[in-house]
């Protein structure tokens, strides 16, 4: 490890209502791989966005190569040599590899673009990185792993001295990760500073020199990787005081029947051989880190995305568990499943329409008498739920876009309650919702469970999972890695399972 190349000191950043970064410190030395870890929402991405000029810091200082700097956009950061390799790749699929690497700064020869030089330069870049990619291949024909390599090559071609990898391994295969590590080690040899953001504990141990842990927007501490254990790191990540009491034991009756049984569900890369059971009146928490495949499982179960295989059985009115075919949300709704998406504005409600219109969206049949919509009845039901759920809205005709996040969520809940759905999938039910409204949603979920509805709750918030669930399924990289009763659940054992690379 060489001298310090980049220091971030006392970085503070607030968004309306959120203190995203609270006096965070971070530094990178030449020739080191520095991991940045923390739970979802700990502030890792925000910190990196401040560094690369996407956000402007409120206070604190950034020192780069001995000088205090402030980048106003990614371009400035890039020109200075601070480059980020995004998790979501930023590429033009219809152009070739070389064309993508040099987009926006093509070498020219008279009128024409000097493609030969671009290809030569790309080849040289790849040679230095020891990667075999044909620069003439179209970007969209490459695997995700290779596309990632191209992004790295692009970063290096900017004469980068600090490269930030934002969860680079999330979409890669084992072999590709191994290749990636070879490259990262190589870059380290060359004296670059590397920031490595990842959730995978195994990788952190293998590739990084130091680990900085963040929690809830604050700086927790920095460890030397080889001197610390996985447990040390996990403890730093989760070591928060839990204010709300976690649930002590399951509230589900021991003889409660199974209402939903999923066996060997496969859907794309993110859902592999997922099996679980849901019982009547149960709140089943789905825990895991970002990209673990929880939302994908829910969407496949709900028929929103195609699935390759798997058996789904649902308990019918007669109490029998029967296999059903769910190929579309229509089917799922027919069998009494309701899905509350994490992205309410996009998938949950039609925000340009009124509260009552959204409430009845899934149950139009109940509100049509003859050909016409019975608007009186519609309004009455909408108002009933406004009252029951304590939705804060002037009236049922208010457009949903004018409501706060928590109240939008209540409108979506009302939509499924009108349908009398027995199985409700809550995907991040309290994301973007303030504390007061959060508690109301929790109360509501408990009430629904007590009434005999069964709830699948996907949540990335550890406190939420521990407080609400009767049982917890933990997923990691598309697979179920744990299924534990609430009485045995602790932050540590959940996090261990969520970061486990099972194969």
């Amino acid at each position, binding site marked *: 490890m060489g001298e310090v190349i980049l220091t971030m000191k006392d970085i503070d950043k607030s968004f309306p209502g959120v203190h995203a970064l609270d006096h965070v410190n971070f530094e990178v030395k030449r020739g080191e791989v520095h991991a940045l870890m923390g739970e979802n929402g700990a502030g890792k991405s925000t910190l990196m966005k401040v560094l690369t000029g996407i956000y402007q810091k409120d206070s604190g200082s950034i020192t780069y190569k001995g000088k205090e700097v402030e980048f106003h956009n990614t371009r400035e950061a890039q020109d200075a040599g601070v480059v980020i390799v995004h998790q979501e790749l930023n590429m033009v699929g219809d152009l070739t590899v070389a064309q993508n690497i040099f987009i926006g700064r093509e070498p020219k020869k008279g009128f024409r673009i000097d493609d030969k030089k671009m290809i030569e330069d790309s080849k040289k870049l790849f040679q230095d990185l020891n990667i075999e990619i044909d620069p003439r291949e179209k970007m969209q024909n490459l695997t995700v792993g290779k596309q990632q390599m191209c992004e790295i090559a692009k970063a290096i071609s900017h004469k980068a001295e600090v490269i930030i990898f934002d969860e680079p391994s999330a979409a890669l295969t084992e072999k590709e990760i191994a290749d990636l590590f070879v490259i990262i080690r190589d870059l380290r040899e060359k004296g670059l500073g590397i920031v490595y953001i990842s959730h995978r504990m195994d990788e952190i141990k293998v590739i990084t020199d130091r680990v900085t842990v963040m929690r809830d927007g604050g700086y927790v501490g920095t460890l030397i990787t080889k001197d610390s254990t996985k447990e040390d790191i996990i403890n730093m990540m989760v070591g928060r005081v839990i204010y709300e009491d976690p649930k002590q034991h399951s509230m589900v009756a021991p003889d409660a029947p199974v209402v939903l049984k999923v066996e060997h569900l496969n859907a794309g890369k993110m859902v592999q051989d997922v099996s679980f059971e849901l019982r009547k009146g149960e709140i089943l928490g789905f825990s895991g880190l970002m990209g673990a495949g929880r939302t994908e499982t829910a969407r496949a179960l709900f028929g929103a995305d195609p699935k390759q295989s798997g058996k789904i059985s649902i308990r019918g009115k007669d109490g029998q568990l029967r296999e059903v075919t769910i190929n579309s949300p229509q089917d*799922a709704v027919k069998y009494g499943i309701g899905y509350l998406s994490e992205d309410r504005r996009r998938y949950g409600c039609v*925000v340009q329409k009124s509260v009552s219109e959204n409430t009845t969206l*899934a149950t*139009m049949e109940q509100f049509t008498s003859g050909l016409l919509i019975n608007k009186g009845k519609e309004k009455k039901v909408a108002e009933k739920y406004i009252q029951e759920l304590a939705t804060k809205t002037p009236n049922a005709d208010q457009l949903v876009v004018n409501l706060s996040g928590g109240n939008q969520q209540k409108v979506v809940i009302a939509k499924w309650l009108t349908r009398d759905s027995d199985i409700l999938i809550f995907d991040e039910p309290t994301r973007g919702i303030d504390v007061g409204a959060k508690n109301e949603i929790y109360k509501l979920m408990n009430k629904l469970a007590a009434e005999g509805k069964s709830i699948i709750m996907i949540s990335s918030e550890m406190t939420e999972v521990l407080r609400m669930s009767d049982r917890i399924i933990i997923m990691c990289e598309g697979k179920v890695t744990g299924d534990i009763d609430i009485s045995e659940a602790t932050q540590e054992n959940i996090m261990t399972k969520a970061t486990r690379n099972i194969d």
Partner: protein
Amino acid sequence: MEKLKQNPIVKKLGLNRILLVCILILMFVAFRAVLGSKFPVADSIRSTLNYVYFLGFLSLGVTFVIATGGIDFSIGPVMFCCALVSGYCMTSYGVPMAFAMVLCVLIGLAFGTFNGWMVSYMSVPPFIISMASMNIAKGIASVFTKTQSVSWPQSSDPVNGWFRNIVSVNGFPVGLIIFLAVAVICGIVLYNTKPGRYILCLGSNSEAVRLSGVNTKKWRMLAYMICGLLVGIGALFFVATYTTVQPGYGDQYNNEAIAGCVMGGTSMVGGLASIGGTVIGVFIISLLQQGIMAFGLGKGQQMIITGIIVIIAVYIDVSARRRKN
């Protein structure tokens, strides 16, 4: 202005619509004042109404399609195709009047169904299918009629003249009554029935509607079918007022129909549609055409002015939406 917006009567009617009516009246007064006797009141109203009849149906139809966030600019040529094919059946094959009228509407419906199926089940972009349908409609009309124009019977025709009663009976504007009645039905369908609700909602956020367990494909297709049906009816009114149709034409009505619709406050992005606005918009466009003609200007100026109006109306819509987000 803010105060005006809060007024309960204004709120009920919609500020936009009130403004549009004012524009309509002002236009009429202005034409009369400037043109004087070249713009005789009674005749002008009659010719405006004649224009409103067929254009109104096109505009109402395309309102449904635009509400889903799509577009159909094959409506003008399809209207001509309906009138030509059914008219030719009547004049050359002796198909009875009533059947010809039904056929006319059915042809419109067939085109609407085809467009809707292509857009929602085959995911062909609406503008491409519009282009293709436009060509196919023109082609069918030309082939079927052997490129001859078709004249529907005059009102003096003892056997078939009765069909002109849909427009007027002894000077009484039956057409206006029918048009307004259909507009009211359209309004009810769009705002007070399940299909209408789904059409508006899926135009606003198709994915959220799908995730509520609604068959969005079916309802999207229905919007195009309603459009086709209304275009077929519009064709009847066209021949009932203008008698003769020529193959190979009809394009300019696309723009006028879309203009009426967008002016009335239906958003090109989908999800927001106003039947009342469309009706007033159609009146404005129709009056404008009469005014332009009274000025001694021709089709050319009509097209230019309509084109500019649509650009302005859509730009206002696009920039208003962007400000909102």
